[in-house]
Structures are given as structure tokens and as C-alpha cells.
């Protein structure tokens, strides 16, 4: 299966879709700071992998897929939900990359430059996620 860009999806999204994700992302990042102050870094760290915008993203995919099918004369409800399920399967592979990201930061941040470690950990997230996705597709 080929990976590519689908720029038409930008036109299907409304500014409110982006605003919701901006607000959710901002709120959970700010909340993580407050949780760290109140309960310490041990509890706050859990929320660095909190699926904050996942429900909003899945709902958006369901809505877009449903609209596409409706324009073609079909109901699209079932197809929309299945599309959200496919997106969630991808997110599960991305979560494997998150584990690699967290392990690298945990082991190496105390001894190396923050910018370097966060960059390497970010690239490790991408590499592990893509590899997991590719393996899942192949089997």
C-alpha cells in the first residue's frame, strides 16, 4: 500500500476542527504542568502519553468518511465508524513508537543535551511507528 498526501482533506476540515484540537492539546499540556506541581513528576509523566485529541480525531474521520459516502448516495455510517477503527489501529502502532520515545528520554536525558535527546527520541518514535505499521501490514 502506497503512502501519500491527500490534500483534499484540508478542505473538508473546518476551522473549528483545528481549534478543538488546539484547545484540547493546550489544556492537557497545561494540566500536566499542574498535575506535576500537585502530585509530582511520577503521576504527571503518565499524562505525557494521554490520548487527549484521539476522540476528536476519530470523530472527525468518522464524520468525513460518512459525508463522502453520503455524497455518493450511500448512508456511510458503518463505513465512517470502520474508518475511525482503521485510524485507531494506526494509533496503536504509533503508541509503540511512544514507548521507544519515553525509554530513550528516561535513559539518556540526564546525561546529554535536551535538544539532542528530544530530537533523537522523536526520530525513534517515527522509525518504530513506521516499522510497526509496515510489519502489521505485511502479516
Amino acid at each position, binding site marked *: 500500500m502506497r503512502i501519500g498526501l491527500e490534500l483534499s482533506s484540508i478542505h473538508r476540515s473546518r476551522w473549528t476542527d483545528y481549534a478543538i*484540537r488546539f484547545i484540547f492539546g493546550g489544556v492537557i499540556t497545561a494540566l500536566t504542568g499542574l498535575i506535576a506541581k500537585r502530585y509530582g513528576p511520577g503521576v504527571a509523566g503518565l499524562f505525557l502519553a494521554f490520548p487527549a485529541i484521539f476522540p476528536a480525531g476519530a470523530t472527525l474521520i468518522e464524520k468525513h468518511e460518512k459525508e463522502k459516502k453520503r455524497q455518493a448516495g450511500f448512508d456511510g455510517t458503518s463505513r465512517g*465508524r470502520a474508518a475511525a477503527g482503521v485510524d485507531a489501529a494506526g494509533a496503536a502502532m504509533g503508541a509503540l*513508537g511512544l514507548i521507544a520515545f519515553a525509554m530513550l528520554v528516561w535513559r539518556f536525558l540526564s546525561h546529554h543535551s535536551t535538544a539532542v535527546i528530544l530530537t533523537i527520541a522523536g526520530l525513534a518514535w517515527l522509525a518504530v511507528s513506521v516499522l510497526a505499521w509496515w510489519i502489521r501490514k505485511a502479516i
Partner: protein
Amino acid sequence: MKELIVRFLIGGTLVSAFAFVGDVLHPKSFAGLFGAAPSIALATLGLTVITQSMGYAATEARSMIAGSIAFFVYASIVSHVLMRYRTPALATTLTLMLVWFGTAFGLWFVWIL
């Protein structure tokens, strides 16, 4: 207060940027990877190093491993339920959030605490 606003703006921007990348990619399963991007972690850890210390940020990252495992379990179950039972996405993702909380705090109690 100023720190909270900075966290809000950086977190919102990073989360939106990764979400945008996910929006324009296909197939959907590949785009889904960006639903689990380390956007909140990148925003938080950088700021934590500046305001606290590297050791403090490393402790957060250690707990993040448990949160990430919980994310994997959560997303896998959400995917299965949506594809098998075709339930509404919003209700499914929000209800199953309990799985994330249960797994994350369960692992934290067993492994980290």
C-alpha cells in the same frame, strides 16, 4: 500563570501540527500513527527541563512508558470495537478512556510506585 499560558500555547501548537500532518496523509492506518505522536511530551519535557531539572523530566519520561503502554492497549481495543461492532466513534473513544486510566495507573502502581 504565565507558565501555564506558555504550556497551553506550545502544547496546542504542537498537537495541532501533528494532527494536521495526520490529516493530509493516507492510507488512514498510516495517518493514524500521528494520533499517537509525542506532541504533549515534546511540549512538556522541554519546558520541564527549563523550569525544573533534567532529573525531574527523566522521572516524567519513566512514567510516560506506562502511559504509552496504556495508549497502545487503549487504541488496540478502540480499533477492535469500532471495526467489529461499528459503534459511534465519540462514545467508544470516550468510554474506553477508562481502559487508558486503568492500565496507566495500574502499571504505575505495580512497576513505578
